[in-house]
């Protein structure tokens, strides 16, 4: 028997595809550590200690004896936004695909480890209309069919205004087509976050969004159990 071609994991092929889609409109692929400081994972993102907004993300902490300042397995890829803003001047356009961790019980739609895609765009005059257009562009390419996006009010500590994003695939044979699906959170970067990175919110504004890549896989390929991605089971991988 001849050795056939191997199969690429759907998460990395989606990341490559996402990168290619965003590269066309100038978004740079940024990255940062998975073991992150409390400072970057929370404080710099306007999520203070002992604040109810911390409840939104259950966190894995490293032991005090191992670290010189409090560290976590990052709960979001947003700390990379901060790290990047600290080192770059606007205009800034980045995507951050990467692994994140939440201390939550797992089921077919939740894993304690998963991949997130965040995007950040900062320049003069960036507003919610740019966010909407960028996401419509992305979803239309990623799901190979014209896609509409709508906003609903929401709250995330690092954005203001914050919005929940629903998408609707229009002309498509996909099962998803024709209905509104809640897909992600987004908003305009909170002025405290910008100031913390020495960006003047009176001059610059920006949008940020975050979506689970595993969830994109559920929508794109019909993956039924997101936990299958992390078992190394080739009965899963070899279907891709």
């Amino acid at each position, binding site marked *: 028997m001849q050795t056939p071609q191997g199969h690429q994991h759907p998460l990395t092929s989606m990341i490559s595809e996402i990168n290619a889609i965003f590269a066309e409109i100038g978004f740079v692929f940024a990255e940062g550590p998975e073991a992150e400081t409390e400072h970057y994972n929370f404080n710099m993102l306007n999520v203070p200690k002992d604040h109810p907004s911390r409840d939104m993300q259950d966190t894995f902490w490293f032991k005090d004896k*191992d670290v010189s300042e409090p560290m976590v397995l990052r709960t979001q890829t947003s700390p990379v936004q901060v790290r990047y803003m600290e080192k770059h001047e606007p205009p800034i356009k980045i995507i951050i695909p990467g692994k994140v961790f939440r201390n939550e019980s797992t089921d077919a739609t939740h894993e304690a480890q998963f991949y997130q895609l965040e995007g950040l765009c900062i320049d003069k005059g960036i507003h919610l209309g740019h966010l909407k257009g960028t996401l419509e562009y992305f979803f239309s390419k990623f799901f190979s069919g014209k896609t509409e996006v709508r906003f609903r009010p929401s709250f995330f500590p690092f954005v203001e205004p914050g919005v929940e994003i629903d998408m609707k695939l229009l002309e498509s044979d996909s099962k998803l087509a024709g209905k509104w699906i809640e897909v992600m959170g987004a908003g305009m970067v909170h002025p405290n976050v910008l100031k913390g990175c020495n960006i003047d919110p009176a001059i610059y504004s920006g949008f940020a969004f975050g979506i689970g890549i595993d969830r994109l896989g559920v929508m794109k390929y019909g993956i039924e159990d997101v936990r299958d991605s992390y078992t190394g089971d080739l009965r899963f991988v070899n279907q891709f």
Partner: protein
Amino acid sequence: MKVIHSWLKDYLGESLPDVNKVEELLTFHAFEVDGIEEVAGESVIDVDVLPNRSSDCLSMRGIARELATITDTALARDPLAELVSLSPTDKVSIQIADSAACPRFTASVITGVTIKESPEWLQKRLRAMGQRPINNIVDATNYVMYSLGQPMHAYDADLFPQMNGQWQIGIRFAVVGETVSLLAEGGKTEDRIIELTGTELLIVEGSTDSPVGLAGVKGGRFAELHSGTKNIIIEAAHFDPQVIRKTARRLGILTDASKRFENEPSRELPPYAQRDIIKLITEIAGGECVGLVDEYLVKQKENITNVSRINVNRLLGLNLSLAEVKKIILRTGAEVIEEDSDSITVRSPWERSDLVIEEDYIEEVGRIYGLHNIVSVMPEAQSLAEINVKQYYTERIRRVLLEQGFSEVMTSSFQKKGTIQLQNALASDKSYVRESLRKNITAVLDANFIHTDLLGIPDIRVFEIGTVFIKTETSVSEYIAISLGVRTKGNGYSPKDDVIIKNGCTAVEKILGAEVVWQTEKGVAEGNLDVVLKTLPVPDAYDALPALSQVSYKAFSLYPAIARDIALWVDDGVVAEVVAETLVAAAGPLLVRHTLFDTFTKDARTSYAFRLIFQSTERTLTDIEINPIMETVYQAVTAKGWEGR
């Protein structure tokens, strides 16, 4: 927050929209609605109040106010707009030890009440909220809390000692080692004795300085109401939200009260709640209010904010006039105290602690005006300022490894043993983070080998590129590792594995144009990719992506597969596809894969050997089920004039 539709009517009157309209308005202008159900004859709307609005909207009045804002109507009745005038009393003395932890504490005294069941209308509303009615006084405290968002507590005044003719209530931090006894929790019969660490805020009985409850979290048995209670003291206070939150989290006691206090309802609220509860209690339990004591030590800060038309439009992408912006902001109940040609200065409604900075108001304008009015601006093509080195080179590595038959896996970042342990692991076998990929890859090889037939592959070849963690002297660090694993034999490692591994490793190094330091052992190679990536030239552009194939994933069966081989002679010219078609048709739906694994021609005849894989999605297959199927297959072969070998 459960919201009872008919309760909203108390505030909105006839302008209250029907339940479905309420759901729609909240969804697109304020909060997500998790569902609507009928409970105890009431329509109950489950509203997911956002964290920034949990200070004012964990209340019926708050939700009603929100609906009035969204629909641009006035509340028919607004309890927070009616000024409070309650006569003071010197019957209660309040000593606050720390004004930051407790900026305000109010207590009212009502004499001559009769404890009994609440009237039916009140019981019905509490039941719809999922509460069990207890007695008229306790029910009243809950009722007013749900109405206005202010938690309250009632004591039996005759069981509360007096000193100098006054009831003495103290608020202070706990002392280390002190204990407090809390009321039994749901389902339990025994009270809970809590040992205190010094960070908890306590309500104490002043004459003895003994704890009677955990401030803002839970009360104790002290001065508990009973069927003969005649005189009562009612507490409504404001506590530091972080203090309450810390205590509630540490002890795992999340109550309706602690949930509200940790979201900081307004400091202005307690007298309004006192007024409403006094009115309610005197109506349903009789008695007379003696008066109110109000220790208000640290006043709430006024929030005054400048909102510019330009900034509103700059963030929302709208083109609103200042008059329009002003009109929308006024709908929230905020007050415009100054105005110039392009901006307004606004004082927030006192119950809205979330309206502090200009962006908070910009959000208000956006959602009240309607986020659907925001028009998409399509992005333009633009060149990339930077190429991600890791992404560029790992894409290349993947491509060459796939060509060599390696499939890509991703494995857990958690493991059972190691040196870097988490404080709060999900499970005992996931309490450490991985420091290498090797163990996981070995486990993947072990687990997958039995599936080779099912997958139609001769051996198992996998790789992973992922983060592993290392402990440094002062911290936890990480790097990107790459690992390749091969298994050619079912019983474990064989030296043949290393040859395939070596080829894979060589291909990786060739495509990178750099050496990787591999640790190869028992069919698994691992190297540090980060150190290599740092030495590589930065590329100008990503490689074009290979064309993506259409994938439609199917959940795989967890039942084992059974393999059967069949070899047969056919006349020259009969191609394998034709033979396969016959086999597939005869084998039926349990056949999930067929692989041609041998072909040779002799004396104008060709021999084909196929492996047939059977699997069910419902059960484990046995010979008893497969043997007759194979009979059918052989019969089909014979019928074609082919000869089984």
